[in-house]
């Protein structure tokens, strides 16, 4: 019993620390692309620690096996990369020129810039 309580406390502290470091990173890092790295920490170990603590707590102390937490992890792993990708693509679209990025090899352009080069993109600003 003591060991389980110790484990629960340990995971809570770990998640607290990583959640804090993630938020601190948002303040400390200066450029927008680096800032994007901070939330990935909070969603992996930050949330993961709380979920592990919750599984142990409900299994041993409340005597009730609860595996909801696995679903939360699954949905986070499905949605978080997509949010990050969209923010990154927005940044490339608004702030990076094709010359700022590394060479895209045989394809010449990255997808975000390639879309801008298509001539008949409908112009929604006039309608």
């Amino acid at each position, binding site marked *: 019993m003591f060991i389980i309580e110790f484990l629960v406390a340990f995971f809570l502290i770990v998640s607290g620390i990583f959640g804090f470091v993630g938020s601190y990173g948002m303040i400390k890092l200066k450029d927008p692309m680096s800032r*994007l790295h901070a939330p990935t*920490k909070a969603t992996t170990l930050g949330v993961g620690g709380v979920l592990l603590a919750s599984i142990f707590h409900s299994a041993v102390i409340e005597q009730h096996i609860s595996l909801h937490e696995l679903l939360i992890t699954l949905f986070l792993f499905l949605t978080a990369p997509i949010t990050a990708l969209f923010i990154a693509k927005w940044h490339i679209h608004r702030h990076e020129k094709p010359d700022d990025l590394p060479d895209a090899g045989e394809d010449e352009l990255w997808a975000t810039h390639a879309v801008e080069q298509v001539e008949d993109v409908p112009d929604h600003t006039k309608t």
Partner: protein
Amino acid sequence: MRLLHRIFPHPHLTILLTLVWMLLANSPSLNSLVFGLLLGIIIPFITQPYWPDRPKLRNWPMIIEYMLVVLWDIVMANITVARIILFKRDADRQPNWVCIPLELRTPEAITVLAGTITMTPGTVSCDLSAQGHNLLVHCLDAPNVDEVRDQIKQRYERRLKEIFE
């Protein structure tokens, strides 16, 4: 066999949906199992026309190995990135773009690779090249670009190639 395939077009999806439903219900009862199976049969049946060329997964031990490798890397990378954020001066940090030439061609495999790269702290996948031959990755602190590229190809892409292709 053909009939079975008609009824269960995506057997893995059926199992996954049933499992997710039972986890949502959060109590292992016959009720939720039956309803989960019902959803697991109906949803793949209806959505089958929208996913014609789904990849065949092989090499199940490799899938488990891949998950364990990714989990381990997430923990280690978290510690590395925490150290960078807390103790490294912003001026010493070298954020960098890395271009990763892809050997994977299956869209699903590339999606998994990009997702994995984003979920490991320190790297975020940002864009694909116009025809999908290269992946653009942003690194929080990468003095040596080649090292990051080789590590991603070695650890993730090689395993995904064995799983999907």
